[in-house]
Each structure stands twice: as structure tokens, then as C-alpha cells.
């Protein structure tokens, strides 16, 4: 005897749901990151040297990986968010699957650009 089945991953394995999840998770992680980002930059209040001291901390490879992740997440959240604005405020043209593909592609490009340009 067990409980009746509930909505599981099979019901949610479609593109629109997946981009919703990616948008939600990226938003949450970015929200956690923002205070740290602002704190670091606010050290500029104490002059260039103080800011440099904190910037040097970001040279550590693990931080660079984190930064790559953040750029990727930011792009997912941006493009996924614009998709939502199109759905909610634009002319109705379906679930905007093109924008989902754009979110994936642009976030990969963003990540690659970061890796290429960062020191």
C-alpha cells in the first residue's frame, strides 16, 4: 500500500518548465551573490589600494570559476527574463521557444567570452 502518484519529472520534462527552473535558480544564486559583489566594490570607498587588495583575492582560480558561473547565470536570467516579458507583455506568440534556445546559446557564448577575455 502506498500513496497515489504525484506530478513527477515526467510531467515537467519539457523545455518551458526547464527554462523556468533555470531562471528561478539563477535568480536565487544571483540574489545571494549581489551583496558580496556590492561589498567588494564598496571597498573602493577606502581608495584604490584597498579595492586592489580585494580584487587580488579574485585571482584565485576557484573564484574565476565562480565568476564564469555567474556570467553564465546572469545571461540565462537576462534572456529567460526577457522571454517572460515578451510572453506577459508582448503580442502572444506561443511559449517563445526561440527565446529558450537563445538563452542557452547566449549563456554559453557569454561564458566563453568571459574565459577568453579574463586574465
Amino acid at each position, binding site marked *: 500500500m*502506498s*500513496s*497515489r502518484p504525484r506530478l513527477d519529472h515526467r*510531467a515537467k520534462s519539457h523545455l*518551458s518548465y526547464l527554462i*523556468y527552473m533555470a531562471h528561478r535558480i539563477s535568480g536565487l544564486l544571483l540574489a545571494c551573490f549581489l551583496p558580496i559583489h556590492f561589498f567588494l566594490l564598496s571597498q573602493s570607498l577606502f581608495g584604490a589600494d584597498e579595492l586592489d587588495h580585494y580584487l587580488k583575492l579574485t585571482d584565485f582560480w576557484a573564484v574565476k570559476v565562480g565568476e564564469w558561473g555567474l556570467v553564465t547565470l546572469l545571461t540565462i536570467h537576462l534572456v529567460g527574463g526577457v522571454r517572460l516579458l515578451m*510572453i*506577459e*507583455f508582448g503580442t502572444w506568440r506561443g511559449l517563445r521557444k526561440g527565446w529558450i534556445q537563445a538563452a542557452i546559446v547566449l549563456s554559453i557564448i557569454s561564458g566563453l567570452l568571459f574565459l577568453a577575455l579574463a586574465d
Partner: protein
Amino acid sequence: MSETNLKVKVWRGAEQGEFVEYLVPRNSNQTVLDVVTYIQRKLDPTLSYRFACRVGMCGSCAMTVNGVARWTCRTHVAKIVEGDALEIAPLNNLPVIKDLATDMREFFNKWKGAVGFFKGEQTRHDDFAIVKPDSEERQLANAGIECIGCAVCYASCDVVASRSDYLGPAALNRAWTLTNDVRDTQQLDRLRAVAGDAGCHTCHTHGSCTERCPKQLEPTAGISGLKKLVARAAVRGTKWGKL
């Protein structure tokens, strides 16, 4: 004619129960409803399930097949079978009466709760209401009007699953079509009804309703329309009065 059997797991019981496996001869052009019917007629007469037209018009036969809500009369086994296995369960998000039959009352109560019904002020003694079919409102209404209340969208919605008071895609879709019915006289009540704490803004645009609707309706569109209407009404008021 294939000699193989399908291994079909069917939910037996109510809120508590178990999946029971039946062996059903596999045919070409076999629908999931054919499979359920075979089980009930030849293997186990105690199986409870709903169907009516069996030709994709009434929506009565909706069930969860391999985890996804579908009309069983319009779902070919060949399209969704996993190897030789099928899993058939009652629609999600609705209380189970017995086996594959669910209690649809909350679904229709929410329909009413969203003021998903028409009320006008003309009588038979008045002239016909003139509504141009190519007017913007009529086109918006027509886009969602074909709903037959099968509850596939409701059963697919993750927000319905997590918030029991959420009105759901079908009720909100119907409310949207009526919001665009220029003859209706309850627009303010309707807006207030869908603006509730568990109203249209609770929708997170997962899009499962639009993905799964067997009539290719798009509740996400109607709900987006309601979100805009309600938000503007909350900030600026409506042409029908203050929210």
C-alpha cells in the same frame, strides 16, 4: 498482429493503493483507452474508469499515462509505450474516487470561483447584441473558447500541485474568454475573483498547461492577459470601476 503482451501497471485503490500489473495483448492501432477497456472487460471487472465518446470530443477519459496527463482515447500505445511497459494512473491534482476515476468537483468549483460563467443584461425582447467576429476582443475570446473542461491542464500544473487554492489554468482561461465578452456584465467581480491571493499572478509560466492541452489551447496566453489587466487595475483602476 503482434504476439507480444503489454505490461500495464494500473493504479488500484484511492488516495492509498498500489499499482497492479496486467498483461494485455498488443495490437496495432491500439489506444490507451482500448487497453484500459480490455483490462476491465477481460481481466478485472472491478477496475473503475471513465470514458464516454471515445473519439476525442468529450474529455472524460483523461488519465495520467507514463506520468503525463492525456486523453486516453487519443493516445496511441505505439507513440508512448516504453519498451513494452505502460503506467496508467488517475489525473494528478484531483482527489481519487476509485482507481482511475477522480473527483472533478474542485475543478469545476474553481471554474465558478473565477466567475467563469456568462451573465448579460439583454433579454429575448431586446435586439441581438452585435459583436464583430474580427474585433480584437472577440478574437482573443475565440482563441480560448473551445475548452471542454477535461482537466488535463489542471492535472499538469505544478502550481496547482503546490498551492491548493490556486484557481488553475482552465478556470483562468475561461475567465479570460469572458473578460473579452463585451456582453458580459460581471467584469469587475471577475477581475476581483482572479486577482485573489492564489489568483492569476501565482502562475509562473511553466507552460505545462499549454504544452499538454489536447485541443492546443493556450491558457498561458489568457493568464498573461489577466495578469496585465489585474495589475493595471490594481494600480490605475479599470473601465468597469475600481478594483
